[in-house]
């Protein structure tokens, strides 16, 4: 700890060493057509790209340089870059609009373009623009950002067609999924087969799987930071699509031109609605399933210094099941609601502040019964979150971020109550849990020399479970707000980059992480029924440390981006269920937990082509993920559910003409680990299963190829209304990837015979789909 403090003092001491007169160029970078701010756009001195910066999550940039005349380059992937000569003799504000699309001449001009991949201190970080995501093939035509993330090295799918994901050997609850800064506790619709993120409402997605900067916390493995669009502040536009199972509609436009805009985006499935006439008169009449999402956002710019954003997400799955034959029914609604209010304020050209107030709620409920017997189960998470974040750009050498974050958690376990006619049964004594979680962080991105750059920081957290609570360990009753158990976490983080030359750099990083709320699942992926639990008297915070080393090289004027990263991760206080687990709705989930350790290590290779007619990437991961629990097989080390030895993705996109564009994806992964049958035994004349060691066998390898084609009938049309068709084929060679296995038994002791049959079930065969997308945009006023 002493070394860390000395190191921080040394770094901050360097702030005062520059006496030369300096001025600041700052402002916002935006899309010229829609007025959307651009996140992560580059600004740099053409003569010395090391003198540069990039825009933050709100499109703001600030670059402080010595007095002088500079040729500044403003660039953003997929946009025409702008070059401007600026005489920096005073602090200067420059808001700039960049135009989407690249002309051929750009390739020549950008010989000295700064390359973020090589230049930044970020490791294991990938930005995905929605334009890229939308061009890729999608299951049933539903574009899905989380499934696209699974195509990146180090990220593995939680299962066939599933939007759940594992990052570098971490569990699904170890991913921090943020939508406009609000934590999304359940990111899956339809048992996880579709993510809750409607592609039309999303602007940008950043995945951080390696060196998580200190401004993020609360999860061990990764951050998926998703920003919603702000809404076109130049023109009104309506965009939508009609697909096989769902349709989408987005309306956006200015409320007050260049000052205020809004966006409303909705999506709903209707496959089962269409089936309703067929169900009429059957035993299942009344059965229905659908999900929907609603994203909304408005923003208002009070002045050049102040801007307000209000955004919200509301999504639900609704399943109503009716069996008239036996009078059985259940209703199962669940979903997320989030609201984020943000205020951006510029104190000066160098100091940017964002204050956020965030509310989020995930709730699950089940109501079912038969005749006079009814049961009702509710669970969920509700957070009230306030945070303040500062971006401080004191000089070209330093970019500081610091801030504070506070969350009040309310976690509801599966609370059940049952009625039998008039009689009501208090079925369980499960209690809601309450907790305070707070954190302070400070980080600095420090350009030590032109070649060496480090990003170092620290995050200090405190987590306190508070009453009302009755402890089953001490039998003590805690009043409202009274602390039950407090944990502290100190998470130092550092990543460094050393440039060997302009196109090659080496990076290394160490990241410490703490996690205070947990989701433990008895299945291989998360389900809406799974319950989040806080750190408590029984459950300690999960802790992790990750070491990573990377080699980054860009080729042919940044047309190709390559990287090799190796990582090693130790995880402590990991949580699982014992192998004799039986679900018990009357018992607190954490009573049944067992605790242990984990580790994960691997190598990731990544080659991406960003420019030209053909774009795409190849990602390959070789890794090993293990867990060990004293209460599971006496601590034998076993392959985690998240272990995937080989994981390969090849993703391509080819623009044949203005009319036709093609996309394809190939995925290959080692089969999931599962627990094999050791033997069969006879009890009460039935065959039963004795299992072998946990996760000691593998399902077959997983592989498939998906293809898509996008057709724009009138690409050059100047009309307000445009439409396109997306044709997609999932699993083109109809690979039967095993989804799960089960065993069925037949015994007839009378005849003296018995039979055991093992089945493997595959889910999605070849599935073609077609989606019609349209866009209407108000004509530009001349």
């Amino acid at each position, binding site marked *: 700890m002493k070394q860390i403090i000395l190191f921080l003092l040394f770094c901050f001491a360097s702030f005062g060493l520059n006496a030369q007169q300096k001025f600041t160029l700052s402002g916002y970078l935006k899309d010229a057509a829609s007025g959307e701010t651009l996140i992560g756009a580059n600004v740099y001195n053409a003569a010395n790209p090391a003198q540069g910066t990039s825009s933050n999550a709100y499109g703001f940039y600030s670059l402080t340089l010595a007095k002088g005349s500079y040729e500044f380059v403003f660039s953003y992937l997929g946009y025409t870059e702008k070059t401007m000569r600026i005489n920096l003799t005073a602090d200067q504000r420059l808001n700039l609009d960049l135009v989407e699309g690249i002309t051929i001449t750009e390739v020549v001009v950008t010989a000295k373009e700064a390359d973020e991949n090589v230049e930044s201190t970020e490791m294991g970080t990938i930005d995905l623009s929605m334009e890229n995501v939308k061009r890729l093939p999608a299951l049933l035509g539903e574009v899905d950002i989380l499934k696209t993330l699974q195509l990146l090295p180090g990220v593995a799918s939680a299962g066939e067609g599933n939007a759940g994901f594992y990052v570098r050997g971490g569990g699904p609850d170890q991913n921090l999924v943020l939508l406009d800064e609000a934590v999304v506790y359940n990111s899956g619709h339809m048992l996880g087969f579709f993510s809750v993120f409607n592609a039309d409402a999303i602007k940008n997605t950043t995945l951080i799987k390696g060196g998580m900067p200190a401004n993020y916390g609360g999860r061990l493995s990764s951050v998926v930071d998703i920003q919603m669009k702000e809404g076109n502040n130049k023109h009104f536009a309506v965009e939508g699509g009609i697909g096989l199972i769902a349709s989408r509609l987005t309306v956006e436009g200015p409320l007050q031109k260049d000052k205020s805009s809004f966006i409303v985006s909705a999506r709903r499935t209707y496959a089962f609605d269409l089936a309703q006439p067929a169900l009429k008169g059957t035993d299942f009449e009344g059965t229905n399933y659908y999900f929907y999402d609603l994203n909304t956002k408005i923003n208002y710019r009070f002045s050049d210094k102040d801007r307000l954003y209000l955004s919200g997400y509301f999504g639900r799955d609704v399943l109503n099941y009716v069996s008239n034959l036996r009078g059985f029914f259940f209703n199962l609604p669940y979903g997320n609601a989030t609201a984020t209010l943000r205020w951006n304020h510029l104190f000066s050209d160098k100091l940017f502040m964002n204050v956020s107030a965030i509310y989020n709620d995930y709730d699950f409920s089940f109501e079912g019964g038969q005749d006079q017997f009814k049961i009702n189960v509710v669970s969920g998470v509700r957070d009230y979150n306030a945070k303040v974040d500062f971006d401080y750009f004191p000089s070209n050498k330093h970019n500081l971020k610091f801030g504070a974050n506070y969350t009040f958690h309310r976690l509801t376990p599966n609370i059940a109550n049952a009625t039998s006619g008039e009689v009501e049964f208090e079925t369980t004594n499960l209690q809601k849990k309450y907790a305070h979680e707070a954190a302070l962080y400070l980080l600095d991105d420090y350009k030590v020399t032109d070649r060496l750059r480090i990003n170092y920081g620290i995050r200090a957290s405190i987590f306190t479970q508070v009453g009302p609570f009755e402890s089953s360990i001490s039998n003590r009753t805690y009043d409202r707000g009274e602390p039950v158990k407090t944990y502290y976490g100190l998470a130092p983080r550092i990543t460094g980059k050393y440039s060997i030359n302009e196109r090659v750099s080496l990076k290394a990083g160490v990241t410490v992480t703490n996690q205070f709320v947990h989701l433990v699942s008895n299945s291989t992926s998360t389900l809406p029924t799974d319950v989040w639990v806080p750190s408590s008297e029984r459950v300690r915070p999960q802790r992790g440390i990750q070491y990573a080393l990377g080699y980054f090289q860009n080729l042919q004027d940044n047309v190709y981006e390559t990287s090799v990263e190796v990582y090693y991760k130790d995880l402590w206080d990991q949580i699982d269920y014992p192998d*004799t687990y039986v679900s018990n709705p009357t018992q607190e989930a954490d009573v049944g937990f067992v605790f242990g350790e984990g580790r994960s290590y691997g190598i990731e290779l990544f080659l991406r082509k960003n420019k030209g007619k053909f774009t795409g990437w190849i990602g390959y991961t070789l890794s090993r993920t293990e867990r060990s629990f004293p209460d599971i097989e006496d601590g034998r080390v076993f392959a985690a559910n998240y272990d995937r030895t080989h994981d390969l993705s090849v993703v391509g996109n080819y623009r044949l003409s203005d009319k036709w564009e093609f996309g394809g994806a190939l995925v290959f992964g080692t089969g999931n680990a599962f627990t094999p049958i050791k033997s069969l*035994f006879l009890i009460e004349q039935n065959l039963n299963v004795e299992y072998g060691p946990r996760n000691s066998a593998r399902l077959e390898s997983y592989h498939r190829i998906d293809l898509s084609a996008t057709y724009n009938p009138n690409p050059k049309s100047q009309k307000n209304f445009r439409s396109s068709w997306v044709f997609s084929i999932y699993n083109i060679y109809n690979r039967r990837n095993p989804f799960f296995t089960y065993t069925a038994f037949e015994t007839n002791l009378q005849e003296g015979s018995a039979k055991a049959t093992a089945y493997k079930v595959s889910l999605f065969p070849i599935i073609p789909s077609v989606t019609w997308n349209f866009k209407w945009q108000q004509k530009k006023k001349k």
Partner: protein
Amino acid sequence: MVTTIKNISLCLLLLCCGVACEEEFLPEISTDPTDIVVEGYIEAGDQALPPYVILTRSIPFSTEISLETLNNLFVRDAQVTVSNGSTSVNLVELCLSELDPAQQILVAQAFGVDLEDLALNVCLYLDPSFSLVGEVGKTYTLEIRVEDKLLTARTTIPPLVPLDSIQFVDPPGNPPANLLEMRCFVTDPDSLVSFYRYFTSINGEAFIPGFNSVTDDVFFDGKRFEFPLAKGEPRNEPIEQETFGLLTVGDTLTMKWCTIDQAHYNFWNSLEFNAINQGPFSSYTRVENNINGGLGIWGGLSVSYITKAVQ
């Protein structure tokens, strides 16, 4: 409950997609040595019974299991001792073909099989002298020495909590007309945690356990409680949704209602949970055996019977 939600949701999902496909496969066969499997009970209550134990061997996974294989499962020449602390008895090994008719009926009931045309030669260890009969409140230890192995287990027979009564009512929904649903009434004692298991017999045939045959009293601790129960259905046969668990008017039902101790409950609870919980949304569940050195169950039961015509 959660499991039911998962399973129904999965069915709906598959129905919705209409595309899932399943095919048979042969899993990797384990070469690990097999285990001795114990199935032994001792009963107190309405018809107290001496202990009996069936010893079999677990076998590697195989698709077709022949009569010969099944007959070879029975473990012979074991030394089986049951003790209540003061009295010990050595159980005698008998195979079905060697039993007198009364003992055969006992075995048939235990196995839930019809003695007529029974192809299997069931072997078991029992106390033909009836010198040690189950008593409420007593703990019984089981010791088995076989093939240089020692297997031990303990079970306690809890107090008897009989059903108050059984009624038959029209079932909800629209099942066939001549079927009725069974409603049971029990007054659960306030002071202790009770674990229950039940079996049904129709027209004097063998007792078959309920599909979910065990429960604890957490939902109705200390209450008089009414609940529907499904009649026992053979576990390895397909479920007929229309008629599952319902009773036919004119039949005679005999309910065997048992209280059991926690380890006994855990065994059946984990075994039945595992049996219905295979699939993508569930991990495996290892059966909680209460036998040291082997698999299976040594269980004490406090048993009451009610016989009633279905009408």
